[in-house]
C-alpha cells in the first residue's frame, strides 16, 4: 500500500475570499510506515486527514492509493477521531462489528474477527458495555478496533489521544505501537504533540501554518522496540528538540510584546 499526495491544495469558501488551508502538499506514505504529521493549529492537519479519508475533495492536486485516485470514503482507509464518534446505542462489541455487519460475512466469522480485535485492544472485559460507561481511553480503543477490524490499507488517526490525560495517553501510545507491529498496518497520524510524534513515528513531517504546507521532515532512527524509557534517552530527546525547533520556526502567532 502506497498513499501518495501530489500538489494537494485545499481552500474553503469564506467571507472576503477563499481561505487556503493546504497549499501544494506533496507526501508519500510507504507500506508499513508509521508517519506522524505535526503542526500547530491552522496548519491544516485535520484537513489533510479528511482529504485522505475521502470525506472532502481537494481543490486541486491528486491523492492516490496504490495508484488509484481517491473518490470518496471507504473501509480501506480507517479513520479515528479525537472524541465522540462511537455509536452510543451500540455496545462495545457491536460498535466494533459495525463495518463487518455491512459485509456478506456469517455471524461466526464476524465474531471471530471482532473477538480478536477486542482482545488486541484489551476490551474483552467490557464488550457488552455502552460507550458512556467507558473511560476516555477505552472509548478510543473501541474507535481504533472498529477501524482496524475492516483491515484498512492505512489507519488514519486524527489527534486520537488529544483529549486523554497524560497517563492514559502513554498507555495508548504503547498500545498503538503494539497494534502497528502486530497487524503490520500502515498508519498516518496527525498530532500537535511532538513528543508523541517522535515516540510513535518511523518518520515525522512538520507542517507550516497559514496556509498549511510541508515545511520539514525527519526520519526517526530509533529502535523498533520502544518503551516509555525510550522517551528519556539522549537520542530521543535530541530528536524531539530538533523537531520542536522546526515546529516553532513555522509557528507564526507567538506571543509578543
Amino acid at each position: 500500500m502506497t498513499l501518495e499526495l501530489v500538489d494537494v491544495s485545499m481552500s474553503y469558501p469564506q467571507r472576503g475570499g477563499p481561505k487556503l488551508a493546504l497549499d501544494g502538499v506533496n507526501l508519500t506514505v510507504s507500506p508499513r510506515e508509521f508517519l506522524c504529521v505535526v503542526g500547530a493549529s491552522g496548519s491544516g492537519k485535520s484537513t489533510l486527514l479528511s482529504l485522505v479519508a475521502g470525506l472532502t475533495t481537494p481543490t486541486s492536486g491528486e491523492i492516490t492509493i496504490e495508484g488509484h485516485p481517491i473518490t470518496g470514503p471507504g473501509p480501506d482507509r480507517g479513520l479515528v477521531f479525537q472524541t465522540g464518534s462511537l455509536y452510543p446505542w451500540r455496545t462495545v462489541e457491536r460498535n466494533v462489528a459495525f463495518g463487518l455487519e455491512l459485509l456478506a460475512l456469517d455471524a461466526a466469522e464476524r465474531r471471530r474477527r471482532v473477538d480478536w480485535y477486542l482482545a488486541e485492544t484489551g476490551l474483552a472485559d467490557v464488550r457488552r458495555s455502552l460507550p458512556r460507561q467507558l473511560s476516555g481511553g477505552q472509548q478510543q480503543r473501541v474507535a481504533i478496533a472498529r477501524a482496524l477490524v475492516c483491515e484498512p490499507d492505512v489507519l488514519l488517526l486524527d489527534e486520537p489521544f488529544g483529549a486523554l490525560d497524560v497517563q492514559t495517553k502513554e498507555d495508548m501510545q504503547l498500545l498503538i505501537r503494539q497494534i502497528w507491529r502486530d497487524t503490520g498496518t500502515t498508519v498516518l497520524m496527525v498530532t500537535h504533540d511532538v513528543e508523541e510524534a517522535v515516540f510513535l513515528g518511523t518518520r515525522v513531517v512538520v507542517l507550516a501554518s497559514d496556509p498549511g504546507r510541508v515545511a520539514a521532515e525527519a526520519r526517526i532512527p530509533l529502535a523498533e522496540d520502544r518503551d516509555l524509557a525510550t522517551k528519556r534517552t539522549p537520542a530521543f530527546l535530541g530528536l524531539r528538540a530538533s523537531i520542536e525547533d522546526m515546529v516553532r520556526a513555522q509557528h507564526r502567532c507567538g506571543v509578543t510584546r
Partner: protein
Amino acid sequence: MKTALAERAADVRAAWPPLPRRTRPPRTLLTIRTPISRRVTTTLTVASLAVPFTFWVVLSASGVVPATFLPSPGAVLSAGWEMARSGELAVDVWTTTRRVLEGFGLAVLVSVPLGILIGTFHAAQAVFEPVIGLLRYLPASAFIPLLIIWLGLGEPSKIAILFIGTVFFNTLMTADVVRGVPRPLIDVSYTLGARRGEVLRKVVVPHSLPGIIDAVRVNAAAAWNFVVVAELVNSTAGLGYRIVRAQRFLQTDKIFAVLVVIGVIGVTIDVALRLVRARVGRWAA
C-alpha cells in the same frame, strides 16, 4: 529581575482600592439546579394537588358559588359514576381514542419519515421547510368550517383536523432531532464502508429515535386538544360531544367529570410514552 512593564504595573496597581468581595448567600430551597430532599419533594408535590382540591371543596361547600357553576367533588364523582355505569362513558372514551389513534397515527406516519428526510437532505429541507413553517401557524380549528365543506360532517373531517393540527409540528420537531445527529458519526460510518441508505438506517434513525418519541409525546398532548375541539362541532359521541351536550342541560358536574377523564387519559399516555422513551433511549441516559 522585574521588567520595566512589571514595575510600571505595580505602581499603577498600588493606587487601586481593594477589590470589593461579595458575600455568598446560604443555600436555600431555590438555589439553581440544586437537589432538594425527598421529603421536601414529596411535600411540595402533595401540596400542589391538595391545595387546589381543598380550595375546590371549601368553595363548593360554602355556597358562595352556585352548584350549577361549580359542582362539588362528590357531585362530579357521582356524575362520572353514573356515566360509567350506563356505558355511555366507555363509548365516548373509545370513540375519542379511536379518532386520536387514526388522526394522530396518520400524522405520525407522515411526519416522521418526512422529518427524517428534511433533517437529512438539504434538498428536502429547501422544498418542505418553508411551506410547513407557514402552514403550522394556520390554526387547525380555523380549518373546521372548510373541512366540513370538503369532507362533510362525519369522521373524515374530524380525523383531518387532528392530522392538520399535529402533522406540521411533528415534522419540524423530527427534522430538528435528525439534524442533531453528530457529523462525525455520519463521517465515520462512511469510512467504515456504509452506503447512504445504511447510514440512514443504521445511524441516523437509531440516534434520532429517542428524540422522535419525545416529539410524539409533546404532540400527542396537542392531539387530545384538537380531538375535543373537533367533537364540539356536530358529533354523536365522544368526550367533546358529551361536554357540549352537558352544557345544553347545565350539567356542569358532567362536564367536570369528562374533564377529569380527559386529564387521566392524558397522563396515562404521557407516562406510557415516557416509559417507552426511557427504554429506547437507555443508551443516552
